[in-house]
């Protein structure tokens, strides 16, 4: 660990821009990206943060383990299609799966706010139990803290996951090759819109349910099928756009996607139009992108579509050339003109008109 003065010098941007942490620092956009790169990666040198991936792969006595951790602070605690409990299991399971690991064990840490109804907590616990069973993981250890009323938001959950890696292969942005196909596992934006609609009391003709789901089984089948999976990434905060920009930056290749091929359900599109949001930036909790050689794209899609959680899988683009440092994602618009698909600065905020 460098001395404190060096640490301060190493991360001037987040500190000089904003003397206080903003909500936008947690929104999955440019601000969070900078905070991780300049604050945490600079501070925690050598902990694998430079891999810019959802889970770290660590060697243990000749085998490799995948390890990841995630905290869940969703409001409301319960929403159409899930709750904070199932989310806390699937989120961590999916982060493990994206490194190609078979998820095995989870720890769970609860930070509870004084006054939380026991009935609510029991529902969350039951939901975690069911989700763990569905994802084939065991919750093996935990921790509980209670904070004063007003110091929490009912319930925060942290889960840490351990997974095992079968083959000695690297699934990461560095493995991507020019010409690879970019696949997405289904329609985008349902989780973010479900949360926002519940939080803000917005109602639509039919309830939009979160897409939260475990993705380990579909990933396992992709690997078992012998497909040359180069890179996987689940689409959470910041949506497709943040994930693709991070991968473009880490791989050094231009990523080209076609808006006309990106699946977004009609009700989600309607909600986004109404709120002035772009579904490509809206959060998902059961969707991922996969990079495979172009020649294997159809086979990979067939494997994915055999799973209910990925039955809407489609190819949305291809990997372009080496950008020589100018990492970029380009998008062909619905009228066929090309533009940049940028990472958002902070949170997407609903527009005035």
């Amino acid at each position, binding site marked *: 660990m460098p001395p404190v003065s060096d640490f301060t010098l190493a991360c001037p941007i987040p500190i000089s821009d904003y003397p206080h942490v903003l909500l936008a620092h947690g929104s999955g956009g440019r601000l969070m990206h900078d905070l991780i790169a300049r604050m945490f990666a600079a501070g925690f040198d050598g902990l694998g943060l430079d891999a810019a991936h959802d889970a770290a792969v660590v060697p243990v006595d000749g085998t490799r383990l995948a390890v990841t951790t995630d905290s869940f602070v969703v409001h409301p605690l319960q929403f159409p299609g899930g709750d904070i409990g199932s989310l806390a299991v699937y989120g961590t399971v999916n982060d493990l799966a994206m490194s190609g690991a078979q998820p095995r064990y989870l720890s769970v840490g609860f930070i509870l706010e004084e006054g939380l109804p026991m009935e609510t907590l029991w529902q969350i616990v039951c939901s975690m139990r069911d989700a763990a069973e569905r994802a084939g993981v065991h919750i093996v250890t935990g921790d509980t803290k209670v904070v004063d009323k007003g110091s929490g938001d009912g319930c925060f959950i942290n889960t840490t996951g351990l997974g095992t890696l079968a083959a000695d292969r690297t699934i990461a942005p560095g493995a991507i090759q020019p010409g690879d196909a970019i696949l997405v596992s289904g329609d985008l934006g349902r989780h973010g819109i479900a949360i926002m609609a519940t939080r803000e009391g917005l109602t639509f003709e039919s309830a939009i349910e979160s897409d939260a789901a475990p993705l380990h089984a579909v990933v396992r089948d992709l690997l078992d099928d012998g497909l040359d999976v180069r890179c996987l990434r689940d689409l959470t905060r910041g949506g497709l756009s943040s994930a693709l920009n991070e991968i473009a930056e880490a791989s050094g290749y231009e990523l080209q996607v076609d808006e006309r091929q990106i699946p977004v359900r009609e009700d989600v599109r309607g909600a986004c139009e109404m709120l002035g949001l772009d579904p490509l930036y809206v959060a998902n909790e059961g969707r991922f992108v996969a990079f495979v050689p172009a020649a294997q794209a159809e086979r990979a899609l067939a494997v994915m579509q055999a799973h209910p959680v990925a039955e809407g899988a489609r190819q949305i683009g291809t990997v372009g050339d080496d950008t020589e440092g100018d990492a970029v994602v380009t998008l062909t*618009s619905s*009228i066929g003109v090309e533009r940049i698909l940028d990472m958002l600065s902070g949170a997407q905020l609903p527009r005035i008109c």
Partner: protein
Amino acid sequence: MKYIDEYRDGAAARRLADQIARITTRPWTLMEICGGQTHSIVRFGIDQLLPDAITLVHGPGCPVCVTPLEMIDRAIAIAGRPDVTFCSFGDMLRVPGSHDDLLSVKAQGGDVRIVYSPLDAVQIAAKNPEREVVFFAVGFETTAPANAMAVYQAHQRGLTNFSMLISHVLVPPAMEAILAAPGNRVQGFLAAGHVCAVMGVAEYEPLAEKYDVPIVVTGFEPVDLLGGVYLCVKQLEEGRAEVENAYQRAVPSAGNVPAQDLMREVFQVIPRKWRGIGQIPHSGLGLAPAYAAYDAEQRFGVDALHVEESPECISGLVLQGRKKPPDCPAFATRCTPEHPLGATMVSSEGACAAYYRYRKRAALA
């Protein structure tokens, strides 16, 4: 999705672009008024389908952009008070003031809330009589009726803890300021469809006649915008200068009469300062005398605040269609959405922000 898909159809868009190319015999410069239209043009790449002879310049119709810096500072001063619950539409929160933004006020404990309707703020005031609830009323004729309704309802309900910080502006006076300015290059306008849905089309007739300029009421989707460009170019080529409505599915010629009545009840026309442009007479709305008690500037004594803008920023020229964002030496270097120097970079609908987001690479090349 009905009313969206058919207006985002690539084949229809290209057909219109071909028609525009066929009727164009010389260069024309058109301005789209609304920031939503600018955003759509750059996002879909509509200008890239047009013949080289057609130049689209981007107008002043982004409410976040043209809200003066001192108004942001006033909002920040009010929102930081411990007795205030400050309500705003989301996109005003990250607009930097002279020293801070509303998101930072929130991070430091200020009660700053995003609402989806000004009526939500009235509801918050009714439920929390011990709090001073302030709504940041920003926008054009589009948002004015709902904001007028909020004040009207607060008045009807006898709420004394509700007030509005108002920065309302009007489109036709800004169009006139652009047309009357020496060096104006705008030859035709795509008028803002949603503004016209409220106000109707009649107030544009005198402008078209006085300045001999075609004005086509236009929507926001690619096919709408190309249709608007087509009608505008056709008028120019034929030597006509009329008001035409290319957005009839949303705009009746009389507009929304009950909404106009409510605006006239609650607001009065006043001079307003536009960020990047300056003071324009009769270009804004303030509370009518009968509703003056709901004016947050008066209530919190922040009306005297004045500030200086960056001398490097050319947003005034961009907002009047004289320059394009990449013409500015600070664009995407010293001026970015994270560190905006001025009006057109602060909002996602500002022309500079739209170019930065969708065209950064081409613009810098």
